């Protein structure tokens, strides 16, 4: 029997970026909030200290900061006809665990969506005709437009102290920024990072080709920064240990470096670590989540924590799992198209890649910041180019640069080089400091057959079914990737390298082994229609009005951009609706 606890105003399930933001906003509004974190506490001083924070094997390879698949993983099959098998070792994506979540070990790329990413279905229909979108492409509009979300993007960027340069300031296009971005009310809070050699080469080549190079927005501090919470972040040391690592300098934005210092100092917030949420206690007739049951992983004791308000701020898969188990919404069925829960699971098609080699240029790849430390172009992103006759929709952000030179994983050699032996040694020694990648991060538009549900066979450490992913790349993905391969080749040749690899495009089945991105999205998507979405525009569950769902699980599809900027903006947007409207008059914020 679970031990019953006294009711609190609100619980946040997961204390990463969105859990911290919601807890902060709710406590500021006077609520008593409990943060339930399945993992341990993590602090910069204890956990991210020099010299051991630079341990490449421990963090990057043995996956110290990531979810432990011994406890919990997901299963995968490529089509609904197959039997899914568990992802036994993390590879393709790396969810976080512990206080700070994946926000401790991300690279820091902080995008806004394009305005046309927000109203994707409407935009494409208006531009290409009402029959242009294939039936199996189940893309939707975000119910919140770019203009509506703009102030919240701004707020999240200011929390993080994002380094960058505006390309569209209140409608005025600015060379050197991203001229394709939606209008911004304000410049980035921090100036761009230092320039890398790879970025300089990319900038020149892109300009020669008539493209519009700019610096990717980076949650790596170009200079020390004090955010509106009064928390000060340090200046980036360009250590080349962002992704997969914590930051000893508090120079990468994370819950620890941006918000936890003020949240943890607030008596209205209580952090419970080792509190592994097992299930939601759902009152179906009342359309409320009455309580949250969790296991204290130190003792095995089970607790039931009643709460007036429940914020589901776990990673994509746990958001889905907890809602599916409780039956909050109808499970999506790819055959009938009925049900919304689990629908429109998407990922990132990150297959495009070219490596360029320069005999006479020194790259110093180990001096780098995480957020694609180089130069980007958005000329082939979203609907920034005409798709008439191309046979696909969407695009990619294209970037050339270096994020690290850690040699267990980063050792570029020209095509045809053996993987070992004397020739490999020669080539590795020769090219290590003379090469970098140009890559394309492609969108992944929803497909009727890509979805999440519960696995019938495999279970996690709490005895719950694993989330089962039915997922593969489809025609649109292969075509976007193929097209971007052509663009990458063009850019690479314009750089006039001593050698280059053939541009790769995504072919074949989705493979869980090589890292691609931790940009899993969907399953509890936001929308205007309760039949095809799980949460409304305020991220409030249609079927439980005191349940608010954070994170990329609410994305109707995945644009090409890294999701964190959008996740943060939506968290602030939802928080405002909760604090200004919901807590005064609890109930549905949108009429179904």
């Amino acid at each position: 029997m679970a031990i019953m606890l006294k009711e609190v105003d609100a619980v946040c399930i997961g204390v990463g970026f969105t859990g911290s933001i919601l807890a902060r906003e709710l406590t500021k509004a006077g609520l008593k909030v409990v943060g339930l974190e399945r993992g341990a506490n993590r602090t910069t001083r204890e956990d991210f200290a020099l010299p051991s924070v630079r341990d490449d094997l421990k963090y990057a390879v043995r996956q110290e900061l990531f979810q432990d698949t011994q406890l919990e993983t997901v299963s995968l099959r490529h089509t609904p006809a197959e039997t899914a098998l568990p992802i036994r070792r993390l590879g393709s994506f790396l969810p976080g665990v512990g206080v700070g979540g994946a926000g401790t070990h991300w690279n820091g790329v902080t995008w806004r969506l394009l305005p046309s990413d927000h109203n994707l279905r409407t935009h494409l229909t208006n531009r290409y005709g009402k029959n242009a979108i294939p039936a199996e492409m189940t893309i939707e509009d975000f119910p919140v437009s770019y203009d509506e979300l703009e102030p919240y993007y701004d707020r999240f960027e200011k929390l993080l102290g994002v380094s960058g340069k505006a390309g569209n300031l209140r409608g005025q296009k600015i060379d050197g920024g991203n001229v394709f971005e939606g209008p911004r009310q304000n410049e980035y809070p921090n100036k761009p990072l230092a320039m890398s050699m790879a970025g300089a080469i990319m900038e020149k080549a892109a300009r020669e080709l008539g493209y519009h190079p700019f610096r990717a927005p980076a949650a790596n501090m170009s200079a020390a920064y004090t955010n509106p919470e009064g928390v000060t972040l340090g200046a980036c040391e360009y250590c080349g240990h962002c992704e997969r690592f914590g930051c000893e300098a508090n120079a990468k934005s994370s819950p620890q470096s941006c918000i936890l210092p003020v949240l943890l100092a607030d008596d209205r917030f209580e952090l419970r670590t080792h509190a592994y949420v097992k299930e939601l206690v759902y009152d179906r007739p009342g359309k409320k989540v009455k309580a949250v049951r969790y296991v204290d992983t130190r003792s095995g004791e089970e607790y039931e924590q009643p709460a007036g308000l429940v914020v589901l701020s776990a990673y994509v898969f746990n958001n889905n799992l907890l809602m599916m188990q409780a039956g909050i919404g109808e499970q999506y069925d790819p055959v009938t198209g009925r049900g919304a829960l689990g629908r429109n699971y998407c990922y990132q098609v990150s297959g495009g890649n070219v490596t360029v080699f320069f005999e006479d240029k020194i790259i110093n790849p180990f001096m780098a910041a995480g957020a694609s430390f180089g130069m980007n172009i958005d000329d082939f992103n979203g609907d920034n180019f005409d798709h008439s006759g191309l046979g696909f929709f969407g695009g990619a952000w294209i970037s050339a640069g270096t994020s690290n030179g850690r040699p267990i994983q980063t050792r570029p050699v020209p095509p045809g080089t053996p993987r070992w032996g004397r020739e490999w040694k020669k080539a590795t020694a020769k090219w290590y400091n003379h090469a970098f990648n140009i890559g394309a991060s492609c969108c992944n538009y929803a497909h009727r057959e890509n979805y999440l549900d519960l696995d019938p066979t495999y279970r996690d450490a709490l005895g719950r079914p694993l989330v089962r992913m039915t997922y593969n790349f489809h025609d649109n993905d292969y075509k976007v990737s193929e097209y971007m391969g052509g663009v990458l080749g063009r850019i690479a040749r314009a750089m006039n390298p001593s050698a280059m690899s053939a541009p790769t495009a995504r072919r074949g089945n989705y493979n869980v082994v090589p890292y691609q991105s931790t940009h899993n999205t969907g399953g509890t998507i936001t929308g205007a229609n309760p039949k095809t979405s799980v949460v409304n525009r305020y991220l409030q569950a249609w079927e439980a009005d005191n349940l608010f769902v954070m994170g990329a699980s609410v994305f109707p599809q995945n644009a090409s951009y890294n999701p964190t900027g959008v996740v943060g903006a939506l968290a602030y947007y939802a928080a405002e609706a909760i604090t200004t409207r919901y807590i005064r008059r609890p109930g549905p914020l949108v009429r179904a």
Partner: protein
Amino acid sequence: MVEETIPRRDFLKGAMIGTAALAAGNPAPAAAQAPPSAAPAGADAEPLLTLTATEHAFIVAAVDTLIPTDELSPSGSDCGVATFIDRQLAGAYGMGARLYRQGPFPKAKPELGYQLALNPREFFRAGIEEANAWTRKTYGKDFDRLSEQDREAALKTMEDDKAQFQGFSSRMFFDALLQITMEGFFADPIYGGNRDMAGWKMVGYPGLPATYREDIVKYFGKKYDKPPRSIADFS
């Protein structure tokens, strides 16, 4: 390592045979008197945590073929890579940390990743057995007894998935062997490999502390000339 040298395992075996042979009045085989030069002094100085003598001989021969001695670096085992692998397989990684191990374990397509019931320690045990069985069938000897040229050819055959293994493909074993070898060559020296930062020196990776706020401007387009340092230098 050169082909006529005697691996450690055979030294031990030879020593015992030699003892028996001497007792029987026969002359001791040369092997009994030769130093175990296949496991060079540096690598051999480290006691083994989990690898058997046969497995260690295989690993030494393999890492010395994957990372041969030349002007760029000492051999893999001289750089401590065999020690690294022994320690990794004896520790949490070898025992299956961060590996979901619930069955069933049906045969799977490679895109679904590792699907065997074996933890890495068990996988390497099985893989080395298979590799030696295959070289015995193909070359008449265990892998570590082959000439350098034959070792290269044998590894290439496994890499190309053309060696017959029971239970899993030779490529799968080769890929795991190559991966852990590269980890041992390039990981921080605290784990026993990358001795004297030989892997880092080979490529010009400066290691720690990696605080480049000023150097990123100063060394733009220029070779970074400071010698590498590792975790131990700051501990």
